[in-house]
């Protein structure tokens, strides 16, 4: 077995403020029933004014380092679509606040597929031999992009952060990242977009169709590349876009829906943070066990999409 990247730590952070569906219904023409039946979401965490993506990223990063038992890494990469400022990137400040001043640090932007682009980049940096350890953080305060009067997007989006540590290892180890698929289609930018000086807007039905097809095909390519059957996958951990999209992806793949890990009801769609938050949920629920075959997938603005296959490592997360 050759050199590979191995998942060595996981940490997440949610801002404490919770907005329930009933709270949204007090301000907008919506209801708990309307939101739950269309999205599966019951509540979302929203960062207080003055709390930025970097603040959430630092907490998740600290916990991922603790989970990995490390105090230092060779690089810090941050996936976000809502950086603290347009220039410079947020990652150098996050690295500094984590006591990692001096190490290479930069942002990766791929919206809801951000964590998959990040993991692929981090794994490649390790597999190449350039680095031994990397801290990869997905964090967004995407609620700041929303039109306060838009009942659809305000129901969907939550804020949060999740991080993993990758270390150099062998491809045969538990925790090894084994298969990667990424893609984009810029011709469909209008489906999900935050226009200059505007608010986030989306075309719901087209997003639904594209999300289901792109995630399904991406997962199928990764499985085919590894020679894994759908039946052999223990857990699908998709970007938490909408509970009905996730159900449709499982149906397209012919995967038992019980194998999909979902926490969208509690956190909503947290953009780049969504996959690590779902992974942490799977660990807490004791569903993700060492050696399990896990496939991550996501779809987002760009359009962008991707899928990654790994085996689950024996790691623990701190509260």
């Amino acid at each position, binding site marked *: 077995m050759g050199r590979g990247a191995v998942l060595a730590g996981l940490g997440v952070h949610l801002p404490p403020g919770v907005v329930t569906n009933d709270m949204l219904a007090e301000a907008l023409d919506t209801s708990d029933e309307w939101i739950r039946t269309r999205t599966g979401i019951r509540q979302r965490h929203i960062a207080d004014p003055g709390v930025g993506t970097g603040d959430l990223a630092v907490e998740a990063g600290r916990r991922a380092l603790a989970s990995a038992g490390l105090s230092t890494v060779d690089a810090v990469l941050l996936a976000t679509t809502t950086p603290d400022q347009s220039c410079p990137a947020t990652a150098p400040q996050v690295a500094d606040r984590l006591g990692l001043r001096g190490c290479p640090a930069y942002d990766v932007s791929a919206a809801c597929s951000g964590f998959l682009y990040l993991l692929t980049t981090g794994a490649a940096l390790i597999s190449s031999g350039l680095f031994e350890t990397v801290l990869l953080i997905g964090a967004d305060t995407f609620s700041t992009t929303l039109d306060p009067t838009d009942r659809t997007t305000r129901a969907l989006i939550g804020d949060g952060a999740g991080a993993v540590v990758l270390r150099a290892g062998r491809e045969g180890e538990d925790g090894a990242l084994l298969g990667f698929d990424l893609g984009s289609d810029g011709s469909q930018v209008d489906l999900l977009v935050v226009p200059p000086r505007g608010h986030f807007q989306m075309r719901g039905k087209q997003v639904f169709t594209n999300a289901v097809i792109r995630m399904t095909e991406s997962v199928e390519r990764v499985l085919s590349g590894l020679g894994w059957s759908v039946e052999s996958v223990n857990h699908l951990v998709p970007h938490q876009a909408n509970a009905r999209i996730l159900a*449709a992806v499982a149906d397209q793949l012919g995967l038992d829906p019980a194998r999909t890990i979902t926490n969208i009801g509690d956190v909503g769609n947290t953009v780049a943070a969504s996959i690590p938050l779902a992974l942490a949920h799977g660990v807490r629920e004791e569903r993700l066990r060492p050696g399990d075959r896990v496939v991550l997938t996501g779809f987002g603005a760009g359009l962008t999409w991707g899928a990654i296959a790994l085996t689950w490592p024996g790691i623990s997360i701190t509260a």
Partner: protein
Amino acid sequence: MDATIKTVFLNMISDQCEVPAEDLTPATALEELGFDSLVIVELTMKLRKEFGIVPDDDDLTFAETVGDLLDAVSKAAVSKAEAQQ
């Protein structure tokens, strides 16, 4: 092929809205069936799984009747058949 797909789709709509297929006419307004906005998209995903066809997004967005939906499905089936020739 085309007729089969349309029949399957009509039965999917019938199951979903719990109205007998024979009571659904091309003129039946989708609004009357009590669907939420995502149900049609979910049904077309099932068509993709079964027949490998995906109706055009615009055709679905502007569909107002059962007939409009069946036309969209038919158009997608024809496109797929032409692409295979």
